């Protein structure tokens, strides 16, 4: 008996996971962290993305808050799908597709010089960066990570092993991302004197 990485999880079974398994676990958990965060944030605050897309799309293609919530729901479902072995390949393809979608939206915002905060990753109440280069980079990174996860092929370890590690790492990743995206809010609550004017978009 040695130390345990997870409750009831002996070291030797963890060590049996191959490097390919770890690639799958890490890629799935990274994707799931980002998508879970983005999805839950948009479920609560769809207005920011509605405003940002309103800036980019012609009036005839105006996006509603309900449509943004549907997208958010898809992100959460894909995030959960990445953590279960049977749905992982399909969810990886979907995550890659979402990454490409984010990159296209970011490119459109970048080219147009968008200034409306998109609330893509949370932060609450329309805060955050507008659609732009950061979304292009994030979208392409998501697509690349999804491709790497798919290319890793079938896992050698048991499905339960990968799900457990994927879920644990995705939990940690989501929490860290959430704290990072809400850092201004946390700062203003903990240090009220530090609160300053929030910049809003010109357009």
């Amino acid at each position, binding site marked *: 008996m040695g130390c345990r990485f*997870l*409750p*009831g*999880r002996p070291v030797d079974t963890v060590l049996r996971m191959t490097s390919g398994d770890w690639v799958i676990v890490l890629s799935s958990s990274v994707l799931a962290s980002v998508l*879970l*965060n983005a999805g*839950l*944030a948009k*479920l*609560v*605050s769809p207005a920011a993305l509605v*405003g940002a897309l*309103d*800036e*980019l799309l*012609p*009036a005839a293609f105006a996006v509603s808050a309900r449509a943004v919530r549907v997208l958010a729901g898809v992100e959460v479902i894909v995030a959960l799908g990445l*953590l279960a072995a049977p749905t992982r390949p399909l969810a990886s393809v979907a995550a890659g597709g979402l990454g490409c979608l984010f990159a296209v939206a970011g490119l459109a915002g970048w080219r*147009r*010089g968008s*200034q*409306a905060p998109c609330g893509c990753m*949370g*932060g*609450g*109440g*329309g*805060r955050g960066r507008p659609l732009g280069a950061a979304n292009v980079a994030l979208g392409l990174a998501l697509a690349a990570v999804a491709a790497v996860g798919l290319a890793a092929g079938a896992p050698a370890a048991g499905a*339960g*092993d990968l*799900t*457990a*590690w*994927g*879920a*644990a790492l*995705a*939990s*940690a990743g*989501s*929490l860290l*991302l*959430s*704290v990072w*995206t*809400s850092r201004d*809010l946390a700062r*203003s609550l903990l240090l*009220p004197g530090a609160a*300053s*004017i929030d*910049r*809003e*978009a*010109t*357009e």
Partner: protein
Amino acid sequence: MIQVVTALALLVLAGAVVLLFAMLGELASRVPPPDGGRPDQTLVPLDEALVGNVPDTWPGSLAHLSSASEGVLVVLSTVCQSCRRIAGQLTPELGVGDGRPFAILISSPGRDRGEDFAQQHALGRFPYFVDENGDWVTRAFGVLSSPSALLLREGRLEAALQFRDLTALRAATNGQMTRRS
């Protein structure tokens, strides 16, 4: 099996915390300032502004600012919430120009939306210009944020300030212009 259940429980907890953070953020954006609803008096100089710049061309409705010894251009946007509030507060008596020529620039993704914004807030009482995508104000003064006020002297940008409260802006513009006179 127990490991999977434990990890999934952890994931649910993490999701709940993420959701809580998101809801806190949304709530914070809806709650008035802690000082009893008094608007934020802070004025922030816009770092990106091209202070000292004189535009090559001026839109017709803003042309009077190009030759005015002192003038104020208020930059609003159709997508920012503060801009809606401020646009609703603008009255001839509460004009930020305080006797000086002033005008309003409405940054908008389309002319129609900009005109709608002007109509909704009765901005037709003031000289205003709908700047599609903020192209002109970005090119002329490098300004990307709203609501903001551009203090001009003979068409030259003297200062650019982001603000949330008209009274604070008036006090600041009066002080700034007086100091520079």
